[in-house]
C-alpha cells in the first residue's frame, strides 16, 4: 500500500465520527426513544440475570404448587403453569431466547445484507444485474413459507430457527445499501481512492461500508423487532422453539389454550413481547428521525 493513501483512510473515519456524534446527540434528545432504551435495557437485564435470583429453573416442576395463582409474596410471584413450573422464570428465560435470536439475527442479517449490497452497488454492471436478480427472485417468495420450510429443513430448534430467519431477512438491507453504494461509487473521494491505487475490496471496506452506516443503523433497528416477531410467530405455530424450552411465542400459545379460565398465562408473556416491540419500534423511529431530520 503506497504511503499517500494513509491520510485518506484516516481522514474519512474522523469526519464520519463527528456526524455520528451529532446524530446520536439528536437521538438522545428524543424523550420517547430514550425512555424506550431504558425500558428495553431493564427487560434485557431482567431476562438475562433475573432467572438466577430463583432457586429453580423454568423447567423444574413444583408438584406442591401446580397452577398456582398470582401471589407476589410467595415463592412463585406470578404463579405456576399446569406442570408446576414457575411462570415468571419461564417468561424471563423465554425472553432470553427471543432477545438473543432477535439481536443476533438482526446483526447477522444486517452484515450479510450490507456486504452483498455494497459489493453489488460498487461493482455494478453484469455482476450487479445478476446479484440483484437473485434478490428479486427471493423477494417474490412468500416470506412465511420460506421461513416455515427452512426451519423444517434444519430440523427445528434454536439454530434452525435462527438460520431460517436470517436467510429471509437480509434482503432489505442489501437493497438499501446497494442504492447507497451506487451513489457513493460515483463520488469524488471514491474516485480519488481508486486513483490512489486502492483495490476494490479496500474501497468497499474503507469507504462504501462506513459511509452506508447511518442507513444501515436505521434499517437494522427495524430488523430487530421483525426477527423477534418471526421467532415468536413460528414458535406460536409450533414450528420454532418447542417445549420444554420456553420462548415468548410458545408461552403465548400455551396461554391461548387456557385463556378462558386463566388469563395470566397469556397476559404475562404477551405484555412483555408487546412492550419489547413497542420499545424497539420507538427506538427505530427515533434513530430514523435523528439520522434523517428532513424526513418529517
Amino acid at each position, binding site marked *: 500500500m503506497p504511503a499517500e493513501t494513509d491520510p485518506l483512510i484516516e481522514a474519512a473515519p474522523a469526519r464520519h465520527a463527528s456526524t455520528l456524534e451529532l446524530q446520536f446527540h439528536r437521538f438522545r434528545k428524543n424523550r420517547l426513544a430514550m425512555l424506550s432504551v431504558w425500558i428495553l435495557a431493564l427487560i434485557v437485564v431482567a431476562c438475562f440475570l433475573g432467572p438466577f435470583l430463583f432457586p429453580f429453573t423454568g423447567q423444574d416442576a413444583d408438584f406442591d404448587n401446580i397452577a398456582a395463582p398470582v401471589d407476589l409474596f410467595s415463592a412463585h410471584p406470578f404463579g405456576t403453569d399446569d406442570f408446576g413450573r414457575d411462570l415468571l422464570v419461564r417468561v424471563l428465560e423465554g425472553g432470553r431466547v427471543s432477545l438473543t435470536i432477535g439481536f443476533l439475527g438482526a446483526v447477522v442479517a444486517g452484515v450479510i445484507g450490507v456486504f452483498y449490497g455494497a459489493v453489488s452497488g460498487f461493482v455494478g454492471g453484469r455482476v450487479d444485474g445478476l446479484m440483484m436478480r437473485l434478490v428479486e427472485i427471493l423477494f*417474490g417468495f412468500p416470506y412465511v*413459507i420460506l421461513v416455515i420450510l427452512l426451519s423444517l429443513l434444519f430440523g427445528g430448534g434454536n439454530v434452525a430457527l435462527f438460520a431460517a430467519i436470517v436467510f429471509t431477512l437480509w434482503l432489505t438491507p442489501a437493497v438499501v445499501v446497494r442504492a447507497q453504494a451506487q451513489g457513493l461509487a460515483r463520488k469524488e473521494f471514491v474516485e480519488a481512492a481508486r486513483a490512489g491505487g486502492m483495490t476494490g475490496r479496500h474501497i468497499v471496506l474503507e469507504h462504501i461500508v462506513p459511509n452506508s452506516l447511518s442507513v444501515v443503523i436505521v434499517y437494522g433497528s427495524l430488523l430487530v423487532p421483525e426477527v423477534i*416477531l418471526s421467532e415468536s410467530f413460528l414458535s406460536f*405455530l409450533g414450528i420454532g422453539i418447542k417445549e420444554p424450552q420456553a420462548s415468548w411465542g410458545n408461552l403465548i400459545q400455551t396461554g*391461548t389454550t387456557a*385463556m378462558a379460565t386463566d388469563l395470566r398465562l397469556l397476559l404475562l408473556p404477551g405484555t412483555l413481547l408487546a412492550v419489547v416491540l413497542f420499545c424497539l419500534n420507538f427506538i427505530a423511529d427515533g434513530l430514523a428521525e435523528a439520522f434523517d431530520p428532513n424526513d418529517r
Partner: protein
Amino acid sequence: MLRFVGKRLWNGSLTLFALVTLTFFVMRLAPGGPFSRNRKISPEVQANIEAAFHLDEPIWQQFGRFVWGLLHLDLGPSTRFRDYSVGDIIASGLPYSLTIGAWAVLVATLVGIALGIAGAMRRNGFTDYAAGTVGVIGIAIPIFVIGPVLQVVFAVQLHWLPVGGWNDGWRSLVLPVVVLALPNIAYISRLTRASMIETMRENYVRTAVAKGIGPTRTLIGHTLEGALIPVIAYLGPATAAIITGSILIETVFALPGIGRHFVDAALNRDYPLVMGITLLYGALLILFNIVTDLLRAWIDPRLRHAR
C-alpha cells in the same frame, strides 16, 4: 403496455418456478416423510404406500412427475387426507381465506386512508394522536396476542361474538377481519399521513388553493390523487402481510382456511399439499405485485414514461 405486462408475467413465472423448485427440494431434504409416523407398520405395507405415491422413485423423477402434473393443472393426491386431491383441499379452504382476506384489505384501506387524512389535516391534533396510537399498536402488538385478547373480551366475557369457527354468519367474521386488518390499518394510515403532508406542500396543490376551488375539491381532486401513489404501492406488500396474517388468524380462530392447512401439511410432510399451497401463495403474491405496478402507472403518468 402489453409488452410490460408480458415481461412481468414472464419474470413472475420464472420466480414461481424457482420457488416451486426450492420448495420441492427443501421438503424432500427435511428430515422425516409423510409416512414415517410413530405407529409401526410392516415394511411391505410402508413400501406399498410409498410406491403408490411414487415416493420410491429417484428424486429427479419425482420432480419431473410433479412438473408434468403441474402442466396438466394436476397437483396430485394429498398424502395425509385419503381420497382427497390437493385441488379439492385448496378449493374447500380457499373461500374462507379469500373472504377474510378481502374484507381485511377493504377495511384496512378505507380505515387506514381515513385515519391518515384525518391525521394530516389536523397535524398534532387529537385525531392525529389517536390515529398515531392506533398505528403504533397495530405495528407493535402481534396478531397472535391481539387476537386472543379480543377473543377473551368480546367472546368469553361479553358474549357478543363467537370465539371462533364459521357458524355464526357475519358475526364470526368480525374478529378475524378486525385483527387481520389492524397491522395494515397501521401501515396504510402512516403512509397516507406522510405522503399527504408531503403532497400538501406541492405547487399544484397550492395553485388549486389559490384558484379558490374550495378545500373539499382540492383535497379529493388534487391532494389525495397525488398522495395515494405510495399507498397503492403498498398493495403488493399488503398481500404478503395478509397471507402471513391469515395463517395466524386461521390458527387463532380455528377457521378451516388454507393457511392452517399449510402449517399442518408442512408439519405432516404432506408434500403435494405443501407444493400446491406454496404455488398458490406465490402466484397470488406475483399477481398482486403486477397489478400494483399497473395501478401505479395508471395513476402516475411519470412512471409510464420512465419505462
